[in-house]
């Protein structure tokens, strides 16, 4: 059964696109057929992070407006046979896409893929509505900053009105030494306020920036902090189909990453 997962945050710059690219890569590494869908019309980034910018011919607006078939717009990743990207348009704006057309596209993609991961634009307007329209699940990305947590809270509130299962939380850009010194919200504080299940935490790792500038998601690398985090999250997503194990699984991931972060100090 195919699943469509929207990656959202409300606030910009917390790592939605990076999370989308890396979860897609990590799921592909686990032999899943994955399609990444960029709904950030006018500000497309996902293709750049994936290093596939030079391959774009048609985009999501071309599909929505019937200028091409969905399959023509899909770009195969250069590293995996089972990883595809449906790029956003750079020249249109967000109103050119409608929730209905997104729902239609996702329904078609579900026939081909195991996972459709939707990169949501920042904000809570039309772009957000398009992105969540066809999603079955949602992952809310936040950083341990007050403003980011506030926006994540708003998004979680809005997601309650959608036909989406309870969203899961990814805390990104964690700086362990700042958390320990009390200069940053701790993981517990963030989880307590948002009161949703924690799917994973990702350290603020320079390798993420290096990798994304090279157009190669960090999850590809075997042993950086961030890549392990992302691959753990991917495993957790797969684990969701086994509800009884999910809690232990999460604990495992959590303590593993925590132990890993602990080594740093």
């Amino acid at each position, binding site marked *: 059964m195919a699943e469509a997962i929207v990656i959202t945050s409300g606030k910009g710059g917390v790592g939605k696109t990076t999370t989308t690219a890396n979860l897609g890569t990590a799921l592909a590494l686990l032999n899943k057929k994955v399609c990444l869908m960029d709904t950030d019309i006018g500000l497309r980034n996902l293709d750049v992070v994936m290093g596939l910018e030079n391959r774009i011919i048609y985009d999501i607006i071309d599909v929505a407006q019937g200028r091409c078939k969905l399959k023509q717009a899909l770009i195969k990743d250069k590293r995996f046979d089972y990883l595809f990207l449906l790029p956003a348009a750079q020249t249109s704006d967000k109103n050119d896409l409608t929730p209905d057309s997104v729902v239609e596209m996702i329904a078609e993609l579900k026939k081909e893929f195991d996972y459709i991961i939707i990169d949501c634009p920042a904000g809570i307007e039309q772009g957000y509505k398009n992105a969540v329209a066809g999603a079955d699940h949602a992952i809310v990305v936040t950083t341990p900053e007050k403003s980011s947590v*506030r*926006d994540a*809270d*708003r998004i*979680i*509130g*809005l997601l309650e009105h959608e036909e989406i299962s309870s969203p899961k939380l990814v805390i990104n850009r964690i700086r362990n030494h700042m958390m320990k010194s009390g200069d940053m919200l701790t993981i517990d504080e963030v989880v307590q*306020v*948002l*009161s949703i299940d924690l799917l994973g935490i990702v350290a603020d790792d320079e390798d993420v920036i290096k990798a994304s500038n090279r157009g190669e998601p960090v999850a590809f690398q075997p042993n950086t902090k961030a890549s392990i985090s992302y691959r753990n999250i991917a495993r957790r997503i797969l684990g969701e189909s086994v509800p009884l194990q999910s809690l232990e699984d999460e604990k495992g991931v959590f303590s593993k990453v925590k132990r890993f972060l602990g080594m740093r100090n």
Partner: protein
Amino acid sequence: MVLKNQYVMIKGTRDGLTLFLDDSCSFNDLLDELDKTLSHDEFDEDQAMITVKIHLGNRFLHKEQDEQLRTLIRQRNKLVVQGIESNVISKAEAIQWKEDSEVRVVSKTIRSGQVYQVQGDLLLIGDINPGGTVKATGNIYIMGALRGVAHAGINGNRQAVIIASFMKPVQLRIADLYSRAPDYETEGVYMECGFIDESEKILIDRLQLVAKKRPELNGFERSVLNG
């Protein structure tokens, strides 16, 4: 001084006059009789104003009838209507009463950007996050953390209180007053209540104090008795 009439009985007390009006005759008869009765009495120019309380018994007055009655009495100089009391109320008022005195139990998290409003008292089982707001015409009880805004007594009830298991509000509002969090970072407090004190300011104190400050908080009767 007791004047006995067919439909109108007047009793004089230290505080003024009390009119007991018959509740079985027609309203027009009542007005006629009252008019006559009042015109018997002569009031001196230098006499102080006399307050009049009216007891209607089991009679229900419409808005217009209420106004008619008040004008009639006001026409006599020196008489001021202090209040009209009746043993009966309309269904609508009764329902309003019930709603205002009911405790609504809600279990959810009020998140940033969400506003939750109820008639009567609110018992929230869950948190109010920063940026979230709850409003109630009555009291607000929160079994969870209050990190957002709570507004009790929105229709002007200054007796309303806000009670939370964990209190770290952005703002507390009661009736037309509000208080905000200090500009410095605070820890938040457990088991506290907010209420308006004698100095007309919102005070936050241990919730055990509620029993002293708002003894009328117990049960349904308080609303009925207080009106």
